[in-house]
């Protein structure tokens, strides 16, 4: 294959633009410092992008299920899982695994509740997950009352460890993302999810078990949120009631900026990393240049729109 053909194929990838944008923003950032701290900025970007990617993967699977499917309970689940896990672990290294299991169990429980609302009560997913997020947030408050317990030292060390400037956790999540991309493209489950997202009726008539597939996606999303809560509380020195807040918009933004279709049926995992790095780097760039809050919001919004316009194809002329 010659270079031109390769480039053309690359340009056809929907996730390309997220990476292009991330790199551009990074270059603009280090332009300010004259190249100083270029590596450190990337390290920080990978560190924090990791957490968004974890929830982004789950959100992406849900969004792939088709229009109207979205998980708004991710922030509350992060908070609940973080609170429960840190309390169970109670700073003891020996309980790390137990904490992980509990966080995942929290996620699974939330996922089951979400899908029960969607399926049994036929509540549109947006509202079902929004309502359950209120309940989960209350549960987190009632359970922990915002009291912040330190994570076990080993967990804290693991979540902040670096290997040649690359966060170990980021490496793990890159592997996880690769696996999830494989699941999406090359397994039955992935095909089912994409089929349902395109045409749920046709999927049913093609013999796909629509109910179970959707169920699994919602549970997966919540489990990843639980995992994120667990790791995040390890990373930032304990859980707090507001720790999930920013992941509501972030998880959705990741999916769409990463080039997945919001109408469902067409998604990709690599874009999540690109978008996560991009979103972090945008804030960093604007902070570095010393923009005030108003200008920062304004610029963030315009940059997001610019990226999406650049990545779009013009509607074919008739």
């Amino acid at each position: 294959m010659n270079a031109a053909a390769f480039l053309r194929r690359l340009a056809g990838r929907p996730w390309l633009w997220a990476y292009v944008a991330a790199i551009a923003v990074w270059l603009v950032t280090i332009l300010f410092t004259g190249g100083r701290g270029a590596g450190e900025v990337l390290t920080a970007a990978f560190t924090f992008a990791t957490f968004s990617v974890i929830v982004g993967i789950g959100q992406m699977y849900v969004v792939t299920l088709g229009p109207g499917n979205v998980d708004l309970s991710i922030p509350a689940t992060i908070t609940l899982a973080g609170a429960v896990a840190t309390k169970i672990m109670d700073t003891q290294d020996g309980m790390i695994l137990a904490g992980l299991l509990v966080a995942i169990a929290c996620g699974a429980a939330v996922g089951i509740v979400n899908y029960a609302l969607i399926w049994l009560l036929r509540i549109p997913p947006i509202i079902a997950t929004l309502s359950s997020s209120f309940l989960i947030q209350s549960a987190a408050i009632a359970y922990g009352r915002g009291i912040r317990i330190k994570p076990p030292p080993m967990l804290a060390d693991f979540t902040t460890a670096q290997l040649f400037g690359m966060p170990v956790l980021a490496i793990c999540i890159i592997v996880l993302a690769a696996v999830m991309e494989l699941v999406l493209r090359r397994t039955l489950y992935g095909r089912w999810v994409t089929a349902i997202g395109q045409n749920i009726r046709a999927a049913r008539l093609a013999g796909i078990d629509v109910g179970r597939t959707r169920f699994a996606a919602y549970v997966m999303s919540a489990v990843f949120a639980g995992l994120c809560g667990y790791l995040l509380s390890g990373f930032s020195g304990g859980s707090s009631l507001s720790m999930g807040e920013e992941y509501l918009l972030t998880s959705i933004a990741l999916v769409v900026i990463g080039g997945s279709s919001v109408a469902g049926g067409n998604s990709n995992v690599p874009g999540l990393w690109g978008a996560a790095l991009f979103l972090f780097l945008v804030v960093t760039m604007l902070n570095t240049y010393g923009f005030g809050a108003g200008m920062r919001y304004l610029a963030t919004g315009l940059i997001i729109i610019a990226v999406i316009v650049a990545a779009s194809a013009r509607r074919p002329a008739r």
Partner: protein
Amino acid sequence: MPVGAPIIRLEDVRKSFGAVRALQGVDLACHPGECIGLVGHNGAGKSTLMNLLAGVFGAEGRMLIDGIESAGPHTIATAKANGIRCVFQELSLCPNLTVAENARVMHRALSGFGWRGRAGRLIVEQLDQVFPNHGIGPGDIVGDLPIARRQMVEIARAFTVTDAPARLVILDEPTSSLDAHLASQLLAYVRRFVAEGGCVVLISHLLGEILAAADRVIVMKDGRVVAERPAAEFTRTSLVAAMGTVAHEEAGTRDMAAGRRQGAPRIRARARTGGNELVAHRGEIVGLAGLGGQGQSEMLIRIFDAARHRAPGITVEGGSALVAGDRQTDGVFPLWSIAENITITSLKRLRSGILIDRDKTDAMADDWRSRIGIRTPDMHNPILSLSGGNQQKALFARALGSTAETVLMDDPMRGVDIGTKQEVYGMIRAEAERGRTFLWYTTEMDELKHCDHVYVFRDHRIVADLTRGELTEERVLHASFEDVA
């Protein structure tokens, strides 16, 4: 036969979609007072040609309206202003609107105070003319109507007149979802419309319709016109021959003696509202007949579901696959390639380890491309790049390629050309011989002849059970209409 100057005339038009050359130099003239029958295999370029006339997209070549080449591009608006109407192959109504509102969407003139009433009267009067006793109200929401009625509304809408006249009406497979009764009503109206000086282009894969209604028949093949003669000069056989398919029509009628099978049935099902029981055995082809929308599709879907989850009153053994007729809503996955669309139900077999094996899926797709003759250079092309009939073939390939013992077919030949039909009939027979069971809902008498026995539906229940020997059009019609039964 052509009378008067042509309304529209195309000279040497060409159209390509990427690598696909859909039209490769076509001439066409439509005169007032004639009905042109347009036939050709799936993907021959018929719909593309009609889209051109309707102004959906432009093309190379000359286009003259009333003898004058238009200055600007030919758009939907200019086509409409010149009285060119089109009933597209895929549904072009808004399902969320009422019948009257859909009429309004078509006519800019229907505005201002009291437009609702005017729109409703307009469409209902037209429906009365085309399909007497249609039973459709102006306030019905289109999405609630069964597909046949939706098609009726769309057809009637094309003939309605407000400010611009209706001079040329294009009907692209208008009868694909209509039963025989409604189809004959439509054809009768077409003759009346033509007699009053209008022009109709009728596209259909049912050659009987073409021969009955058309004055002139144009045969297309691979983007070219290959034959054009008055309809009277064609017979069914010569028409088939002109399309380039070998006519082996009545070739393999099934062994008459086969009769009713014995032994344990593979399917037993009873309609929710009672009536006779449906029974199908291994190796049987069972027809579901009756007028459109009498509960046949519903029965198929219930049987389909019962193969997966337990359902009261239905037993199914050995898995089932379904070929949908309404491919837009029940069949295709629009973002996927043809290969992905075909292999979706067979993926379990096409894995190595837990991962789907690309080589295996490609092999299956290519195998079916040749077996069922899907016209595409590459099975990795998007499914929507296929012509309607070819999409339908892909759905057939999906079901036949699966391991399911029972294949349920919901009026599956909609838009499939006659050559392919013959091949598919052959395939169905061969598969039945090997032990597969087919349940086949169709409104075509010709297709019922391929069945071992036929259940006639009326009002969501089975009212007659005819064996192959007993099957005649008369008896099916009798059973279909209450008063006669």
